[in-house]
Structure formats: structure tokens, C-alpha cells
């Protein structure tokens, strides 16, 4: 099985680079081919990278609190650009202020993200979900 392409990056004007470096290492070791755009990535850059690398998932980080503003509209823009079925994962400190996770999750699910993660998520668990989700997309495509 060839490693699956995924795009990784920190959205908006967010400079938090430590988690990003760890995610890159982790997903690479978990068997993905990671296209890491680093920090301060715009929605366009995410989409272009996904198209160029033929990635089936975009992993968006937002740590600095502007997640709600920065992440809105990514799903719609993906569809515009023909990425109909792309998986959108989002994680980090997604909103301003300590907020019950269920509330945050609901907000981002509504925005069209497939899965939402807090800063405490287990990366092993994320990798498993990602493998599964990608698999079931492939099956659908077949």
C-alpha cells in the first residue's frame, strides 16, 4: 500500500509552530505522506496543495484563538475548487477561551469539518480514524 498523501498546516496568521512540527513527524511515522505547509497558511494555499499533491485529507491546525474566523468557508471553497469529497480535520485551541469541547465540536462540524479535535487529543487515535476515514472514502469511490 502506498502511503496516503495528506496536507498539514496552521491556518490564518497563527505562528504556533511546535505542534505542527510534531504532527509532521507523527503522521509521517504513522505511514502518511505529509505535505506540511507550516504555519500561517491561507485557505487557498491549503486547497492548492491538496490539488497539487492529490491529497484526500487536509489537516488544519489553529491554536491562537482566531480559528472560528479563519476556518469558516474552507469547506465551501474546497467544493468550488472541485475537492468535493476531501476530508477536513481540524484541531488545536480552536476558539478564544476555555470552552466545553462539545460546543467547539458542534461549531466546527457545522462549518463542514469532518472531525474536530482538542489540544489533548491522542494522536494515535487520530491516525486510526484517518486511516479508516480514508479507507471508507476509497471504498465509496470504487
Amino acid at each position, binding site marked *: 500500500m502506498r502511503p496516503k498523501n495528506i496536507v498539514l498546516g496552521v491556518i*490564518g496568521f497563527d*505562528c504556533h509552530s*511546535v505542534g505542527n512540527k*510534531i504532527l509532521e513527524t507523527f503522521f509521517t511515522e504513522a505511514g502518511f505522506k505529509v505535505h506540511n505547509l507550516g504555519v*500561517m497558511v491561507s485557505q487557498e494555499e491549503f486547497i492548492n496543495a491538496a490539488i497539487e499533491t492529490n491529497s484526500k485529507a487536509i489537516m488544519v491546525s489553529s491554536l491562537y484563538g482566531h480559528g472560528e*474566523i479563519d476556518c469558516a468557508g474552507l469547506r465551501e471553497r474546497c467544493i468550488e475548487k472541485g475537492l468535493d469529497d476531501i476530508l477536513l480535520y481540524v484541531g488545536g*485551541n480552536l476558539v*478564544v477561551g*476555555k470552552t466545553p469541547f462539545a460546543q467547539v465540536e458542534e461549531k466546527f462540524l457545522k462549518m463542514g469539518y469532518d472531525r474536530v479535535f482538542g*489540544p489533548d487529543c491522542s494522536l494515535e487515535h487520530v491516525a486510526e480514524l484517518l486511516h479508516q476515514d480514508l479507507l471508507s472514502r476509497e471504498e465509496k469511490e470504487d
Partner: protein
Amino acid sequence: MSFNKLDMDTFNQIREELLGTWPTGQGLELEEAIAYQKTIPESKNFAVAMQRASKEGKTLLQPRAGVALIPDHIELLKYLETEGEADLLPTTIDAYTRLNRYQEAANGIARSLEAKTSLLNGFPAVNHGVPGCRQVTEAVSKPIQVRHGTPDARLLAEITLAGGFTSFEGGGISYNIPYAKKVPLKKSIDDWRYVDRLTGIYEENGVHINREPFGPLTGTLVPPFISHAVALIEGILALREGVKSITLGYGQAGNLFQDIAAMISLRELAHEYFLREGFEDYELTTVFHQWMGGFPEDEAKAFSVISWGASVAVLSNADKVIVKSPHEAMGIPTKEANAQGLRCTRQMVSMLRDQKFLVSEDHREEIEQIKREVKCIMDAVYSLGNGDIEAGTIAAFEAGALDIPFAPSMYNHGKILPMRDNDGFIRVFNKGNLALSDDVMAYHRDKLEERAKAEGRKVSFQMVTDDIYAISKGGLVGRPR
């Protein structure tokens, strides 16, 4: 070698253009601003407060805080003054403003008004303009500082200093490399020269303004000698432009003895290098940042991390401590959580302020070790720049002779890998191109081998990752599980 202050013609030329870049800058008069600053009572002057703390051996408490809207921001600051017992106030600037995205900031203000809660991670001071800033600074009774992370902070400085703030954080390296991706170091150093010159002009006109380079950098496993080198360079650059009150910072590394050695060496080195550059007329103070890396989510555990930072701040005689909140791991703190962090810190500061730290011989050796390391870096900077410290800095970053761990900037080499030794001291695992001498590196390697042996595993990248998570998972050295 020789250097000159940024000359007034150039300054004025830049200024004219700068003030036109956003409506709130238009028509800003420096004379009026200086006159306004002179109406601010001395009890609210940041530079005076820092100098007094230093003389009296006190450690002042300052939180971080900023929200989108003026009334909310004022309410927040007043709460931190009263319920939080803060000695010094902040105004933390939002991340759009930091990157000069005033349009996005305006959008954030609008959406915050709608949502009736702040959707911005700080106070958009440029958008609120001079009158907005004055509303804020006049509403509080403690000295107040602008805290941000802005590579090009010229307009922000113009507006906030005119707005009555008496201290301005940041520097051309420390507010670029950890905070930006694509801003050339030369540009940010030039832009901060403007900020320092502006501060110098205030000083020359009898207004005392405090400047504070940002010590902790990426807040993640930064060895003291790296942040010290940056602090010294930014300190020198500021003094050159006429800054008189300078506060050098350091972010807690975690090991008590390394942190105290760092604070002692920082002060000693600053005087040494400043004197060497010919400065004698300045007020040097220090700031200690409570743990700047990833926090534990559990609030009881977060209190422990806050307390540990508070203890080391006092024991190391910091003139100021920057305080975290029990919400740190989760999000921008509520005013209540912020005040809790302050009160927790207050208790520690008052319990420990009378305690003198007894420094042993071995400990003194760690102080000397840091000084040797800093000397390696500073020698390289001076030599790469042929004595010109600005050029030397830019060249050093390009070559990786000066390199900040985990930084996002493409102008940072990014090859150095730090790691904790068996006692939790931050050492250098992979030096990349850092200008460290062989004997210094041999010392680091020995210390790391000690840990590897104790853990029964090879010195490896996995250890770095383990160390990054350590405090948030409850630990200091990231031991194998």
C-alpha cells in the same frame, strides 16, 4: 567601529509614510503625544515602577490580557488591578494587528460586537486609535504596557505611545523569528530601529518609556544562552537609539538551578556587554516568564506550574514576573482565571521575597558555563558583522550560528535541537551550525549521555518530543514510558 542613531530626516520620512497606512495614524502629532505623556502621573510610569522594584528588591506581577472591544478591555484590566492584585498591567494585542492586518482586525471587532464576546485574541490598538488607547490608559491606575509579537510594530508604537502606554515590548529578532514566517530579519531589525528611535525621542523630550525585548522566544526548550544572546543584541540596539529603561527577559526553563544561573548571568552579561558598547547611562531591569511551553490541562496541575514559575522568579530576584493562568492549556483566560493566576503568584512572591538564595560552587560553575556559551555566540555575531552587530546578527541567523529552536521563520536556520539532561537542564543535542566551541559542546554531550545511560536508550529525537510534552503531561524530563 562606530554607529549612529537613526537620523531625524530618515525617521521623519519613514514616519510620514507610515502614518498614512491606516486612518488612525493620520495627523498623529509627536509634540502633542509627548505633551500628553507628560500629564501621566509618575505612579503610572512603567520605567519608574521597574526601576523602583529593582532598587527595593521587589518582584512585580504582570498578567497578559487583551480583548477586542474597549469597554470590555477596560473592565478586564480593572478587574486584574483589583481582584488580581496586579502591579503592572498589559494590553495584549491581537494576532491580526501583529501582522498589520488591520482590515481583518476591523472584521474581528465587528464580529465581536455581533457575538457580544471577543472573537479576537487581543486588543486591536491600531484600529481603536489614539483616543481608544487613551480611554484605556486613563481608566486604570497602574503602569501599563503594550505586549504583542509584531515584526513591524512601528504604527502600533506610534499609536500606543501617543495613547499613554509607558512601556513597549518586543524587538527585531524576538518579535520576528518566533512570530512570523516570511519577514526578512533585516526588515524587522530596521523596523524595530524605528521603534527604538521613537522611544529615544520620547526620552530626549523628558518622557521615560520602558522597552522590553521578548525573552522567551518560542517558549519551547530554548537554552538560556540563545535567549541571552538575543536579549543582549536587542538591548544594545535599543540603547543605541536612545532607550534608557531596558528590561531583559528570560523564560523559565524548569530546572531551579539552571533558571537561577540564567537570571544571574543575564544581569551580569548585560552590564558587561553594554559597558563594552560604551553605554553607562541606562536602567537595567529583568523579567522572568513563568513556563512558556505547553501547560497541563488540569487546573490544579496548572496552578503547580504557575507556582513553580513564581517561586523561581522570586528566588532569582526578577524585577517582574509574567503570570500565566490556570486556563493556559485551553484558551485565553477569563478575567477570573487570570486573577487566580495572579493571586497564586502573589502568595508565592510574598512568601519567598525574604528568602536569600545561597549559591554553591557547582552552581556558580553553571553561571560561568552560560557565560562561556553566550560569549561563543556573541563573538561569532561580532566577527560575522566585522564589528557591526546588526549585520552580524543577520549573518549569524543566515549561517545558523545563532539559531532559535522550533521557530517558524524561514530566516531561521532551524537546525539546532535542544534536549534536557538528566537533571532537567536544557542542553544542546544537535548544534546545527551554532557557534559553540568544541569544549562547550563536549560538556553538553557528556550531560546528555548521562541521561541516555540513566534511561537505557540512545540520545535521540524521540527524547526531544518527549521533552516538549513533558510538563503538559506532568514531568520535566521526558522519560520513556
